[in-house]
């Protein structure tokens, strides 16, 4: 029982971040028809930029951080992430959209991903980093850990879940209720029509690249202290978010967020749960959701009408 509670809370906390990445993937796909392979690395970029400003590249101890400095670092990290997201769209993605070249944007988004990965890896040379905690969670409970139904749970996990849900709600609200959101919906349903009625399509899409990056990055920064963070973690974050978005066919923010939570829960359950003597173990946690997504894509592809060449 205690294990189940632990799995649910840690799964939801990880899944909340995946969910926000999935929200970003869905929005970008619906606006442009592309899959942004560099998304996870962009989020990791924000996380590492925050770390760099807050604590440098040296090992950090958990309590060595002043909240003011962290806030500044967070703002700088998010601004950098937004700027890079928007700039890469304008410079390297949009030209290929205009030419209708899939190979072009696949190549450029991957190139962005690996350029970011390489840059981060060359600056932060240790295999993984432990992040300082911005908020004084360690003053709650016993050193930031509370017992719930017999399980020891980091207080931060609840905060991450709450924040992620709030950000997803913000994204959904923005899309439904603001002029900017309605403009995005217009672009998603008919780009030419949107351009025809005078919407600045390129600028709006660039802005969206900036915002979805910052949205996911904010949650990732808050969640980062829960586990060691590496360059690879960022790439996998992007991949898991993508898998979640694909499961719900790049649907609404809520659907994508829910799918992200599902992926997080599945991962935590596969990692930790045992039924009698049978348990899969941690090595399956990352692979099985990916394999499930691949099988789902294949199933949908084979069920499609012969002439319909789409997903």
């Amino acid at each position, binding site marked *: 029982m205690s294990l189940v509670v632990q799995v649910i809370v840690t799964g939801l906390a990880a899944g909340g971040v995946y969910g926000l990445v999935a929200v970003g993937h869905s929005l970008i796909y619906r606006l442009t028809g592309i899959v942004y392979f560099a998304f996870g690395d962009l989020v990791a970029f924000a996380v590492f930029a925050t770390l760099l400003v807050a604590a440098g590249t040296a090992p950090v101890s958990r309590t060595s951080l002043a909240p003011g400095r962290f806030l500044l670092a967070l703002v700088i990290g998010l601004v950098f992430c937004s700027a890079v997201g928007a700039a890469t769209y304008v410079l390297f993605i949009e030209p290929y959209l205009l030419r209708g070249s899939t190979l072009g944007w696949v190549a450029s988004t991957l190139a962005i991903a690996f*350029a970011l*990965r390489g840059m981060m890896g060359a600056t932060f040379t240790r295999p993984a980093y432990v992040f300082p905690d911005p908020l004084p969670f360690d003053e709650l409970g016993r050193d930031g850990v509370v017992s719930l139904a017999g399980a020891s749970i980091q207080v931060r996990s609840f905060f991450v879940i709450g924040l992620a849900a709030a950000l997803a709600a913000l994204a959904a609200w923005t899309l439904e209720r603001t002029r900017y959101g309605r403009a995005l919906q217009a672009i998603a349903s008919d780009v030419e029509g949107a351009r025809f009625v005078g919407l600045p399509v390129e600028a709006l899409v660039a802005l969206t690249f900036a915002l979805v990056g910052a949205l996911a990055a904010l949650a990732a920064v808050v969640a980062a202290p829960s586990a060691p963070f590496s360059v690879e973690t960022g790439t996998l974050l992007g991949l898991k978010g993508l898998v979640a978005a694909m499961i719900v066919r790049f649907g609404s923010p809520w659907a994508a967020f829910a799918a992200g939570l599902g992926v997080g829960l599945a991962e935590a359950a596969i990692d930790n749960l045992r039924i009698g003597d049978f348990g899969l173990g941690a090595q399956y946690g990352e692979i099985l959701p990916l394999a499930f997504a691949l099988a789902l*894509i294949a199933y949908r592809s084979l069920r499609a009408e012969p002439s319909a060449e789409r997903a």
Partner: protein
Amino acid sequence: MTGAVLEQTHGALTAGFREARAAWSLRATIAAAIVAAALLAPAVLPLSGRMPDIAAFVYLAVAAVGLAYAVGLAGIPSLGQGAFLGIGAFAEAIARAKGGWPLLPALLLGIGAAAAAGMLTGLATGRLRSAFVAVSTWILTWIVGLTLISFPGISGGAQGLVLPEAEVLGHPLGATAHYELGVALLVLVIVGYLIVAPRAPGLALAAARERSSAAVALGVPVARFRLGAFTTSAAIAGLAGALGVELAQVADPSGYDATLSFKLFVAVILGGARTPLGPVAGLLVISAFSHAAERVGALRGLPPGRLEEMLTGYGLLLVLGLGGAGLLPAVLASWRRFHRAPTRERPSAPGETLPKVEHPAPLTTRRLSKNFGSLVALAELDLELSPGSVHALIGPNGSGKTTALKLVVGDLRPDRGSVAVGGQALDDLTTRGRALEGIVGTQQTTEVFADLTVLESVLVGAGLRRSHAGIFRTLFATPKARRGAAAVRRKALSAIQFVGLEGELDRPSSELSAHEQRLLMLASGLATEPRVLLLDEPAAGAGPAELEHLADLLDRLRQKGLGLLVIEHNLRFVRRIADRVSVLEAGRLIASGSLAEVASDPAVRTAYLGRQRL
């Protein structure tokens, strides 16, 4: 008897030899010299210490050229080449290290495993739009990479799997032998690409790459060709991976991660996917990055792997920013600008004329119906198109005209009803099957295959009924394959001459005027030797003189016994060409007959022609 066979063989050999002499050029001499130099290099140059690295590079180059079969020939954005390499490598390593298999069966297992994985992936993603093919292959890459790292039971854990030394005829297979083998394989895959690209399978793939739906409409088995290209690409990766672990004598589970797939993809894009030497050039550039990264890394104490990723990423972004065709094509293009070769004079098309339709037959539809959700797109359509006549299908936008056309050519499946030609039902046939029965539709007629020339575009259509055009006959240019190719070429030339484009044979079809493009797609359709041709708005956007030219061509086709079903908005054009007119409104046939009869029908007048004078 034996004498005759010997004589035939002798004749074929001398003819082949003569042709080879004629085809041999300066370029071939240079290529042969380079290959010979590459093969002799280990004997001459003091390379023995670096031989294993060089041989490993050559095997990687084989995999990269293999990837060009998928990315360049077929336009499939495959991000899974590293995974197929890893599957080949570990199939080999497990068979050799754990199963104790000898070298050759293990190699075959490696190729087979990678090919099977490629074929499964290809089948599973064959109908997806290419964005999702990229995603699926990327997910596959991660699954394979993570599996190898997380399951020591399969991959031997941190030490990897150590292979016994391979022996061929009692001699150990050293690094130099691997290098020679690698160069030979590299030459084979490059030559294979060069042979396939300009011939029937390559042209079909190029057409499908540009306009998949238009290629399908001409009866090209697009899915089969794509699957073939993808499987071949994976099989080549499997071979390279298997030989790579034989060379290293150890299979390292961390060596087949996403970075490897990325590197191979970059090599292809960086060097240029449409030429088989491009990937090799791209890989050379990446290895230069890798050396630079090692130097800088050693100097500054930074991890060289990450630096290499960064440089590769930047390098690719730079090439993409410069236009994205790849380094090698860019170099070749600027070379050609300075050394403009005189364009070879092609003899203009001989006086071949388009033959009459051999087995003319009427096309009939009975109660043909299709709904999309609750929308009735077409309800109970009965049509009759007799040979040697032009039947125009008119009606307002959204009245079901294009749906009807798609149902007839098999692009859509009807909910009810049937289509038959000459009394033979077509309902179970695919688009290709119907094309073989002589029912061919052309798409919106200005959709050309941008990468192909005029002659090549029409060859795609003319290839429909060709036999002996399989991949092996094409690769080895068997006499039957060459006779078939010559016949197809004659067919294509006569179709081109019929529409009057014989002066433009070698022009890229993207450079043609809109009217010429219209004629080109008509010629591609005619080259399939149809009995019934369906045209979707052939006159859209045409000027008066062009309309007259087109009408004249359709008249002559009618005289040859062809049945023509034409969707058209331009009523002046309809009056000029149509023997019979059918009017659709909201998916229902509301009138059918001569234009005069239809025009006087009150239902038609109110529904459609009310404000338009005939």
